[in-house]
């Protein structure tokens, strides 16, 4: 039996690493990947809490897992649109460095 707090700590560490990668990385694709890492960290705490409430006999305990399902669906849609935007940005700017994409106007 593992304490629930271990799962939450793992989730917090993964989320923090995602935030640091988001802040430190300069490549727009890697920044996008760190967003996926943060979503994964949040999913982990959803599943851990679903398990916790299931033990306490809550009828809606599995709704935590359904929520993770919805997060995954939204992440898939977001990845498709985001990568299309990255391709469009690369076509006009010829760079993936976010420091060089700092003007709205070309």
């Amino acid at each position, binding site marked *: *039996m*593992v*304490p629930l*707090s*271990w*799962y*939450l*700590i*793992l989730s*917090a*560490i*993964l989320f*923090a*690493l995602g935030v*640091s*990668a988001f*802040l*430190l*990385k*300069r*490549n727009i*694709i*890697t920044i*996008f*990947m*760190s967003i*996926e*890492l943060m979503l994964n960290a949040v*999913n982990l705490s959803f*599943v851990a809490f*679903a*398990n*916790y409430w*299931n033990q306490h006999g809550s009828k*809606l305990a*599995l*709704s935590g*897992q359904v929520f*993770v*399902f*919805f997060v*995954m*669906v*939204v*992440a*898939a*849609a*977001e*990845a*498709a*649109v985001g*990568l*299309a935007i*990255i*391709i*469009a940005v*690369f076509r006009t700017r010829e760079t*993936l*460095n976010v*420091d060089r994409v700092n003007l709205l106007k070309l």
Partner: protein
Amino acid sequence: MLHQVLFIVFGLICVAGAINLLAQRHPINSALSLVVVMGSLSLIYLLLGAEFVAAVQIIVYAGAIMVLFVFVIMLLNAGAEERTRGSRIALLLGGPGVAVLTGLIVWTMVRNSQQFGGVLIGNMVQSGTDNTHSIAELLFRDFLLPFEVTSVLILIAIMGAVVLAGKKEA
């Protein structure tokens, strides 16, 4: 005991993959370490008794989404990233901030860990039905409207991706 060992092993693999994502300079290496993180997360979901979520994690995240990422990295021929002044400022200010925030969360969790209780291995099986069956009942009964709305969302995302990435007619 076995549960703890498995949790520690896969948790360490997870954190190592995330650190590698941060440390690598080439996007393809970051993408592959993100696949490692997602794979070991799905094993942690199995420990939590969430078989359906573990399978979907492998199929959708480690499969579909990461293939999309790798495909775009290859397509745009992304090279190693360059360090700039902006990233140094972010390192100086953001690094300690994130470390303090994480330390605070971990400290709070450790301090209150008695009130949280524990997690038992694979206890999502309820009275003869399996995890996937229970999720299906919940998804197609209580969450039917959100489920249908997500299908519209995906349709819009497909159209948006085609419009954004499609060739412009001059």
